[in-house]
């Protein structure tokens, strides 16, 4: 990756939000992080609708039997280089759903994860901090 691309990636990470069977708690916190109060556009972060435009994949929830093939497909649809962020206790470690009959496992069992943001749900500040730390890794 050239220096210019890396700079561009750090200054303009477009986020795609993927729910893999979450209870909606983390999703609400992600939307909170995008409100004018936190104003993520200051750092070039915008929420986009198509995985083809994404640089950051925000995944919430445990991976269930239903969503496992979809998670894989969406991950393959994202053009690389990209950053995968596991948001919330469920995506990091299955949380309270660990051992349920429909749960396949935490997100890193399916696709490579760059950043783990624990919490049930994590605060918007925590999500921003996680994404920033992940971008610093690039």
């Amino acid at each position: 990756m050239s220096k210019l691309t890396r700079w561009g990636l750090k200054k303009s990470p477009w986020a795609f939000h993927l729910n893999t069977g979450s209870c909606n708690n983390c999703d609400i916190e992600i939307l909170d992080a995008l409100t004018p109060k936190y104003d993520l556009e200051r750092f070039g972060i915008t929420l986009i609708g198509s995985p083809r435009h994404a640089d950051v994949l925000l995944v919430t929830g445990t991976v269930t039997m239903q969503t496992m093939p979809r998670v894989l497909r969406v991950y393959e649809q994202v053009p690389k280089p990209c950053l995968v962020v596991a948001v919330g206790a469920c995506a990091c470690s299955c949380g309270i759903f660990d051992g349920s009959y429909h749960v396949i496992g935490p997100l890193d069992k399916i696709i490579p994860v760059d950043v783990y943001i624990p919490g049930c749900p994590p605060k918007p500040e925590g999500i921003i901090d996680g994404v920033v730390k992940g971008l610093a890794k690039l």
Partner: protein
Amino acid sequence: MSLANVLQIAFAVLVFPGFLFTTAIGLASSWIDRKVSARLQWRVGPPWYQPIADLLKLFGKETIVGEGSSRATFLSAPYVGFAAVVVVSAILWMASIRPESGFVGDLIVVLYLLYVPSLALIVGGSASGNPFGALGASREMKLMLAYEASFLIAVFTLIIKNGGIVSLGGMVAYQQAGGAMLTQGVSCVIAFVVALIYVPAKLAVGPFDIPEAECELIAGPYTEYSGTPLAMFKITKAMLLCLLPVLLITLFGVSAWSPWAILWYVLILVFIILLRNTNPRLRIDQALRFFWGPMLALSLVGIVLAAFGL
């Protein structure tokens, strides 16, 4: 044609006032658009280099071609639209910088070349093999059918008023001799209003962002695009954001190459941004009804008034 001539034309198309110059203004305008929108929502907004960072990132990303898409068409569509806009930028600026350099009918060439980016979007969206892309392309097609008629009638109004001058350079020279078109009668004011509404529709922003409606259609025709082709679409859009106000200034406000043109440009840009931020998206049938109803009637009133010399 001598070598010096060829180099001169290449410079005009690629550097000044063509590709590089127009892109710089267009990217700056798109930043102003985002910054003002942010301020209207009590936010701070992105830094000035945001559009450049977006483009550099997109150029470095992987380009994915979907399985169901028609590869050659899908990948070439953004470049076709981009090439057409680059040619428009050279012709349009040159008409103001050196009015004698144009050719008869360059206005018609510019109007036709302005169709091409929309057509490229339609072709690219349809070739992507994505249902959202196809739906976005069909909406873009309907939007084009909606806004073009009233705008063309507005341009005819001007041609009737100036006694049949169909070259951009000639129109600039005519206005330099007799004052801005906008001050030459009621019919021209009506034509200007119609042309002003055409700009956001052509750019597909504001209440007319129907083709890429992000909350219904993901990103419309852009859905399957990634990496460099998406960046080409972004550049094309930024250049159009610069060129459509410039076209309006050339047609109605004497010349796009004068200190006054900056004021004109800012006013038109502010109009687009405010319209975008204060109006919800129209449905495609509402847009079609709006352009084929009130706008067409208004432009017809304008052309009739022009025929009576008002």
